[in-house]
């Protein structure tokens, strides 16, 4: 006998929380062209029912002029954009998740005929609103009672893969600057192939003996080109010459390995002078 099931462990029997929002897993959905379907699990850990609305749009992570990650939204993607937003549907699109219960959202893809091999993207929006909290106030003395409820919208990536997909990244323009007690690191990353580069960036500051003085590891997704900025906490670094090494690899702790497209690691380094 074979049995397959979904369960939320550790939460069973947990006391409800006084908050609004739902737990969402996974945080990225990969849909294979052979199955054309995916699923997202929602769990409401709160004491009130959560009203959830699901929607899609086309967008992708990029960087702004400061190197911060932003999601670039394309309201009307043209035919050359790898957008899956218009042909992936969620079932249901509106639902109420009772307290301490879970619901599954099914994603079904209906790609246009003749879709070329490659990876297509959409952003899934999960809007969750809890029950109206009572407006606080003393009714017999106050003329006005005021309260605001909080709503949360979580946006995650959806990736539809058809046929042969491959990815890679190039690294250029690596530079650094000491900013206060941190070392700011910039690099230009350019995606290769027909799929987003999903991986990790590992920055390490080394002394002349090769000893690691500071390091940072962060997930990264490169969809086109971007120039992210990272900050390594270095504290009070003695004057001298150091080396900053930046490694990009497709290893990710938060994604199952079969979902991550392999690509050779990429590395660059640059000298850092601390006056």
């Amino acid at each position, binding site marked *: 006998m074979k049995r397959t099931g979904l369960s939320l462990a550790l939460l069973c029997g947990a006391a409800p929380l006084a908050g609004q929002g739902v737990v969402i897993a996974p*945080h990225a959905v990969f849909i294979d062209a052979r199955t054309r379907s995916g699923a997202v699990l929602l769990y409401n850990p*709160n004491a009130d029912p959560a009203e959830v609305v699901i929607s899609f749009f086309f967008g992708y992570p990029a960087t702004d002029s400061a190197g911060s990650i932003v999601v670039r939204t394309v309201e009307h993607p043209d035919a050359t954009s790898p957008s899956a937003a218009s042909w992936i549907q969620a079932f249901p699109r509106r639902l109420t998740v009772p307290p301490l219960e879970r619901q599954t959202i099914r994603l079904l893809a209906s790609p246009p005929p003749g879709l070329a091999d490659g990876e297509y993207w959409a952003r899934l929006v999960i809007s969750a609103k809890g029950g109206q909290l009572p407006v606080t106030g003393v009714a017999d003395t106050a003329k006005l*009672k005021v309260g605001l409820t*909080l709503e949360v919208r979580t*946006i995650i990536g959806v990736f539809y893969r058809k046929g042969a997909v491959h990815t890679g990244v190039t690294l250029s323009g690596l530079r650094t600057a000491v900013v206060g007690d941190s070392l700011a690191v910039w690099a230009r990353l350019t995606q290769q192939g027909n799929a987003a580069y999903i991986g990790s960036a590992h920055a390490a500051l080394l002394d002349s003996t090769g000893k690691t003085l500071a390091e940072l590891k*962060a997930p990264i997704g490169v969809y086109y080109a971007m120039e992210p900025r990272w900050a390594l906490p270095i504290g009070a670094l003695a004057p001298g010459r150091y080396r900053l090494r930046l490694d990009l690899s497709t290893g990710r702790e938060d994604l199952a390995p079969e979902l991550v497209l392999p690509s050779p690691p990429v590395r660059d380094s640059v000298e850092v002078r601390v006056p």
Partner: protein
Amino acid sequence: MYTASKAALATLVLALVATAAVRAQGVNGSISATATVQSPITVTGAQNLGFGNVFPGVAKTVAYSDATNSGQFSVTGQASTPVTYSFSLPTNLTSSGNNLPIGSWTGYLNTTNSTSGGSAITPSATPAGGTLSASGALYLFVGATVTPPVNLPAGSYTGTVTLTVSY
């Protein structure tokens, strides 16, 4: 080797996809089981922004540092993950068609659940970037000022603050 992240464990949420195959083998039995741990993301409105009682003609401010009344959000997910956040903020609270102006929004961003040691922010619809902590957490606090006109009718005035987090 695929391992569960500390962030995922910190959320105390594990989504398990379990497959068990059971075969009878005489008087003995064997079970094989596999489990895939999926890293979740959670964005929570942890505390509503509460002004309590206000009076016509008297403005009232709730600071983001007000532990009891400020609006508080939390984000949990994979450690050190960059996220984008933005706010949708009302300009009026409403009650039976009457408007109570609200504005002068203030905010604070931190990787710990505290309004010190982080960064002051100006909540707005323009997306801004943040990074989850090494334990996979990020906290946002908001405050604002309501300015009731002197002739504002009595009632319960409500509105919604929306936080959008892109992972």
